[in-house]
């Protein structure tokens, strides 16, 4: 442009050196940028691998459980029942005594009261319920002696799985040398066994780490997401369609749009407070119930889904709309026959991603009492329940060593659900995608 640049411009492509230099510089810049990109991706992947790796390493022992075998003499006298006990009698029989007698029988040489108490620490306190279940299922074993596999206590479980080290000083260990010796002799005799911990997936929470499971939390999360989905999907999609396709563009709709965008950015704990104030204090819905959790998460997820659905609708090319209007379709027909089918994959993806976010949400649930310690698996959205992320929070808060692995295992289950949901989102998007 200027006089100075003129000669350079005129002969630029004739100057081989200059061209080569410029080319080299351009290639260098490209290579550099590529390297930055690869480094960034590598760092991200590295952290992801670290996270997942540590969670798996920490959590996999929770999927394995230790059992010990005891010769149990189902003596009616110990149980305190008659020779042919009724079902009701068996429900109320004295299983604590049965368990104690069986443990003592396995170690006849231990007689001191204090030592016997230490002996009882080897078997889970929940073992008596296992005995009861066994007997109620099959009353005919009353009066016989059976070898029964019972859940070991958390301390034994940790020891056998190697989670609790043996080489620390005795007074810093949960099990003393004598208890370890008992376990080792028992183990040597083949009376100790580890196996897949299926109970972890079906049991509800418990004070005993060895029998605590995430079944209750999964059920709670399921009912909660069900409520959320049933409410957010129709409300969110209808709102998005109305705002995007029918609403007049004026100050009021502008304000609504701004507010929806703001709501999507509101911290989730605020929605928890709202849920507490409205659903529990005003409408008197039951505390700790998935229905309230679901309603609260609905409030939280709605803006996300409305925004996702609106952008999916907006992405439908205007030429399709014009074509439909051109053959005399009414606005409703245009939306439902042409725009919505094309927007479906985007709407579904947005919904599932919103649901996945709701599944991982903890803070608002703390506000509406879903942090309660609940040992029953909820049978419906009105029963008290907890949710997966809250269960993780609760266990992480527990002092028992046995809950450490449970926390990681529950995180793994939660991550598995999230990955599953995202996979479904991708699958649905592929399936409903219409190419043109």
């Amino acid at each position, binding site marked *: 442009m200027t006089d100075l640049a003129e000669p350079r411009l005129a002969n630029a492509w004739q100057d081989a050196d200059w061209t080569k230099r410029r080319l080299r510089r351009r290639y260098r810049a490209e290579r550099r940028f590529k390297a930055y990109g690869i480094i960034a991706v590598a760092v991200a992947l590295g952290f992801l691998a670290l996270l997942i790796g540590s969670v798996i390493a920490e959590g996999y022992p929770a999927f394995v459980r230790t059992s010990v075998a005891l010769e149990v003499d189902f003596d009616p006298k110990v149980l305190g029942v008659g020779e042919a006990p009724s079902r009701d009698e068996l429900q109320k029989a004295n299983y604590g005594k049965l368990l104690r007698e069986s443990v003592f029988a396995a170690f006849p040489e231990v007689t001191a009261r204090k030592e016997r108490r230490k002996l009882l620490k080897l078997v889970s306190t929940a073992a008596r319920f296992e005995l009861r279940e066994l007997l109620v299922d099959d009353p005919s074993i009353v009066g016989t002696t059976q070898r029964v596999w019972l859940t070991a206590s958390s301390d034994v479980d940790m020891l056998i799985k190697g989670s609790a080290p043996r080489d620390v000083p005795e007074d810093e260990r949960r099990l003393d040398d004598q208890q370890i010796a008992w376990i080792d002799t028992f183990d040597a005799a083949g009376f100790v066994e580890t196996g897949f911990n299926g109970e972890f997936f079906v049991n509800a929470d418990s004070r005993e780490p060895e029998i605590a499971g995430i079944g209750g939390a999964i059920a709670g999360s399921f009912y909660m997401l069900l409520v959320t989905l049933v409410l957010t999907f129709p409300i969110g999609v209808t709102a998005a369609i109305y705002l995007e396709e029918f609403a007049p563009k004026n100050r009021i709709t502008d304000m609504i749009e701004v507010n929806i965008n703001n709501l999507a950015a509101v911290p989730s704990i605020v929605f928890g407070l709202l849920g507490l104030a409205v659903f529990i204090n005003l409408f008197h819905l039951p505390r700790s119930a998935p229905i309230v959790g679901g309603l609260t998460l609905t409030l939280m997820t709605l803006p996300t889904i409305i925004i996702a659905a609106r952008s999916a609708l907006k992405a439908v090319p205007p030429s399709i709309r014009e074509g439909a*209007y051109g*053959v*005399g379709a009414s606005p409703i027909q245009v939306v439902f026959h042409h725009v919505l089918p094309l927007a479906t994959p985007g709407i579904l993806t947005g919904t599932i991603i919103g649901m996945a976010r709701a599944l991982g949400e903890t803070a608002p649930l703390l506000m509406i009492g879903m942090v309660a310690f609940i040992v029953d698996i909820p049978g419906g959205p009105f029963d008290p329940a907890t949710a997966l992320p809250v269960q993780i929070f609760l266990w992480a808060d527990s002092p028992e060593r046995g809950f450490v692995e449970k926390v990681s295992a529950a995180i793994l289950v939660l991550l598995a659900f999230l990955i599953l949901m995202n996979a479904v989102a991708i699958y649905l998007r592929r399936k409903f995608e219409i190419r043109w």
Partner: protein
Amino acid sequence: MTDDTDGMVSLMMEEAGAPAAVPAAADDAGTEAPAPIRMRARDVNVFYADKQALFDVDIDLAQNKVTALIGPSGCGKSTFIRCLNRMNDIIDICRVTGSITLDDRDIYGRDIDVVQLRARVGMVFQKPNPFPKSIYENVAYGPRIHGLARKGRELDDVVEHSLRRAGLFDEVSDRLQQPGTSLSGGQQQRLCIARAIAISPEVILMDEPCSALDPIATAKVEELIDELREHYTIAIVTHNMQQAARVSQFTAFFHLGELVEFEATEQIFTNPHDQRTQDYITGRFG
């Protein structure tokens, strides 16, 4: 929008008076035989927000005639043609004043249902825009939503008839269930024409229907337009002056939102009144 035009309606009615049914002698292109006027636009002004895009346009569309709208880009010819079936209603910021009548009824009047209007005044767009559905479904959609044909044999007949009239049937008869988007550009545009005529409109508006097509496909569509004239009243926007000369009987020249000249095509291309028209058709600007 309706408020502006209501006054105009009554005014227009008087002006239009009786001559709506002049006997049609439409046999020969180019002759000045008076044909009944189907659509009449008077003092049409269009605004996009505050910007005025059209200034006091008056145009008549005569039955069984092709009226070409020509002019440089951005002169308002597409805007005008989209007023004729109220396609501009979709654009929020667009405002139309003046009066446009179809068979002497104001199409912006309160008693007009815009959906029905668009069925009577069909449209073909610049870029072929078949629905992402099957070829059959593309054509059958209009008749179905308007209840023009019963599902099954009757609808099949309408589809076949429309595709035949659009000169496409022989090319697609063995793949009616394939997506309309799998066709070539020219075929897609003819499919869109078939879609438009499947609802038996009275007027067909074409907004640069050939601009995305190659010369062979263009020739086919032009031929088709000439055939369709027999049954319909047609308005076509085009950038191609040869095309306007070939297919139309009347030509309107737009410049900067104004209607400069509206005459028989022959007149415009041989002896235009306005200097700007002269310059444009001889290629001196535009």
